[in-house]
């Protein structure tokens, strides 16, 4: 093999370093209009009045859209998986986060569009906001979502993602020590250097050409087609070159609304978010609340785990149910724990909806599980490398949801780091492998969880 494994330069490297790569904002078409959005100034409020006429009447304004202009107002990020939708493309009766789009204007210049937005007459009746996921379940918590304060549509009508494996009660009974902790990673802005942007050109044949920074051309194609209620051949998404994404550009944040403006104006329209909009109005990585209790033996075997996760979804569901499920499947980290009881909730709050970001669903649980592991090692006065190696995933072990591991590398990666850092491992940990468990590596509590890797 010569090409695979070779250090070939980027396919688009020369274009990047000469400024020739064409990003969406670099596309030039004649007659283009600029879009600007009216966004909610409140975290939670009813919309009591909305009059866009003063904006529409401004000379140079060619289109104004509100929720009334959207053929299918609610289409969820996970609708393709049969999961119901909860978020209107443009706010209708109420706003549930500061920055939520309510109306858009397309005008001859960006300045004029901004001026037109300022002319829209709107009134609100503020409502109490819910911000702390831990208080969402309290009887006196404000009700902020049509489905209740947490997502109720998991399989079987469940209001939470559950994992049950083995016998947790027995594990905690047998434990020498139970270590309990709480872990709370923060909301993170994707902050790609290219902000959200799209340009929609109505074509003479009735199609729309959508220049998009999406990370997912076909996913966005489906989302726009659904909102517009048109077949896929009415739309052409042009993209494939994105100025950074990190998960935030799977949201299809601009394409549909800009398409509606272009259709209404009959002219090309560009909507480019400012950096401030990107920071304050675009979706973020979710903040998570995780509580872990581990049943541990004094020599460092983890017999069982109980875990509660509250996933701060922000105002709407978006991808959060997917993210929480992924989170639950990986809540044992790189280790094999045979007895599990996991409960996770997607909780709504009055902040910008959270979405996928690099490591979606797992970055959070990796932080929780690994910090917890270090704590357990400290509480038991054990070597932090060796307690990890002891519990490491091995070939033939099973995941929280019963999948058999076929190529786990917890063992060699930790051994490599031990060697690199000069951390001395005792002989048994230095020489162990990821091969199926036998002998001292197969204590009684791990026998029942074993699966057959050949059947995977």
């Amino acid at each position, binding site marked *: 093999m010569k090409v695979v494994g070779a250090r070939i330069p980027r396919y688009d490297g020369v274009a990047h370093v000469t400024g020739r790569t064409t990003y969406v904002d670099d596309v030039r078409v004649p007659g283009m209009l600029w879009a600007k959005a009216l966004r909610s100034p409140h975290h939670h409020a009813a919309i009591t009045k909305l009059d866009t006429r003063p904006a529409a009447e401004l000379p140079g304004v060619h289109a104004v859209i509100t929720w009334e202009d959207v053929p299918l107002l609610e289409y969820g990020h996970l609708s393709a998986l049969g999961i119901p939708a909860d978020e209107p493309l443009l706010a209708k009766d109420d706003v549930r986060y500061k920055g939520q789009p309510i109306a858009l204007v397309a005008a001859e210049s960006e300045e004029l569009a901004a001026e037109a937005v300022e002319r829209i007459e709107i009134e609100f009746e503020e409502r109490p906001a819910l911000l702390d996921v831990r208080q969402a379940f309290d009887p006196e918590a404000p009700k902020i979502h049509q489905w209740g304060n947490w997502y109720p549509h998991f399989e079987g009508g469940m209001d939470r993602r559950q994992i049950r494996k083995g016998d947790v009660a027995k594990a905690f009974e047998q434990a020498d020590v139970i270590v*309990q902790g709480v872990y709370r990673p*923060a909301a993170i802005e994707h902050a790609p250097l290219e902000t959200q942007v799209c340009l929609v050109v109505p074509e003479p044949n009735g199609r729309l050409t959508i220049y998009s920074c999406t990370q997912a*051309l076909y996913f966005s194609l489906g989302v726009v087609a659904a909102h517009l209620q048109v077949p896929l051949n009415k739309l052409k998404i042009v993209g494939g070159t994105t100025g950074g994404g990190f998960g935030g550009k799977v949201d299809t944040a601009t394409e549909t609304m800009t398409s509606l403006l272009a259709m209404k104006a009959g002219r090309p329209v560009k909507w480019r978010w400012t950096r401030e909009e990107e920071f304050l109005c675009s979706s973020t990585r979710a903040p998570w609340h995780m509580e872990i209790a581990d049943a541990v033996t004094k020599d460092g075997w983890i017999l069982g785990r109980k875990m509660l996760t509250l996933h701060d979804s922000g105002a709407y569901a978006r991808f959060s149910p997917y993210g929480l499920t992924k989170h639950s499947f990986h809540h044992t980290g790189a280790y094999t724990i045979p007895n599990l009881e996991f409960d996770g909730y997607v909780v709504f709050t009055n902040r910008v909806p959270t979405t996928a970001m690099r490591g979606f669903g797992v970055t959070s649980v990796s932080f929780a599980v690994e910090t917890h592991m270090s704590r357990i090692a400290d509480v038991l006065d054990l070597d932090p490398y060796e307690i990890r190696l002891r519990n490491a995933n091995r070939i033939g072990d099973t995941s929280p949801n019963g999948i058999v591991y076929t190529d786990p590398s*917890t063992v060699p990666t930790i051994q490599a780091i031990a060697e690199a850092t000069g951390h001395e491992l005792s002989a048994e940990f230095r020489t162990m492998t990821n091969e199926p468990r036998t002998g001292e590596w197969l204590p009684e509590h791990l026998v029942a969880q074993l699966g057959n890797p050949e059947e995977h």
Partner: protein
Amino acid sequence: MAKHRGKGIAAIEYPTGMNQNGDPSQCWIKVKPDGRIDVFAGTADIGNGSKTIQAQIVAETIGVPYDWITYDNSNTDSSPVCTGTFASRATFVAGKAAEKAALQVKAKILEIAGKELEIDPADLEIIDGEVVAKGAPQTRMSISDVAAAATWGHGELITGTGAQLKPYAAIVDPETGRVDSPPHSAISYAACAAEVEVDDETGEVRVLRLQQCYDVGRAINPTQVEGQIEGGAMMGLGLGVLENCYPYYPSVEHRGGAFGSYLAPGMEEMPQIDTILIENPSQDGPYGAKGIGEMANNPQPPAIAAAVYDAIGVWITELPITPERVLRALEEKAAGKHEPRREGKKVVFDEELSVNTVSSGGIRFEVPA
């Protein structure tokens, strides 16, 4: 009044492709009359380098030089379905589709060449852009000639398509979370050691060094893998000690609306980053590759948290580990309030953060004694 150093370790795993599958990627390839190869796929390159990776896979699979490949992912008219560039799937899933399409192209080239050379295609192979008879290397035909023969002689288009899909793994048991088929077809692993320096008066944490090992399955392009890992390391450093959309979470006050008030890592925070790649091949990925793009920012925060504990003896489990959180934790420690509660065999940390403290009558986290 001092700076303290500490070390920490973390080990992680991460799935490749969408968690429950059901996420197709497709590729189609056509060969020009001179043998040069056009690849069409719908995979957005968000900087991850998927254009390069898929072009490499196609060149390797067919057996032609890399610079014979043009790659077009520019629009949904010419490119077939790709669910998208997320879930670390651009190499693992979309790259596999490219490999499959390339295998079809290779078979078609050998079929046409077989007709021209009057040799069973099974007895032909492709080496460096030439079709060569196995065991009789003097019998050969360039792919350019094969493509010309297909176009002008046989009236055929050399083309290939490939689609990669693992069917959606439905959760059949909402009680236990069990699925009806394996939801992730490869898992990648990594370990990370962090070294930090903590100023116990200002609370500032500096990450001095990150040593990381990733099982990448197969490094299709080692430089691009390093690029993902180094970039991920800085993003992980941001998660660990800098970045926060809501500095007063759960409050929404004082959000930063500029790079001046949202602390994305800068060049001056860059620690020494050492990267070790292990190639433990996956069963399903192209050439054994796994996906490591996303996980690259996962191991640093817990390694940093453990290193901070090693340095100053306090556990900070709310991210990021800001100077303020360091000072507050040190103050609690000095007041004897940082120790976990011990009750029987229970060792309970962070009670002030728990739902058991903060919720009133809503939700509880019950742990058997």
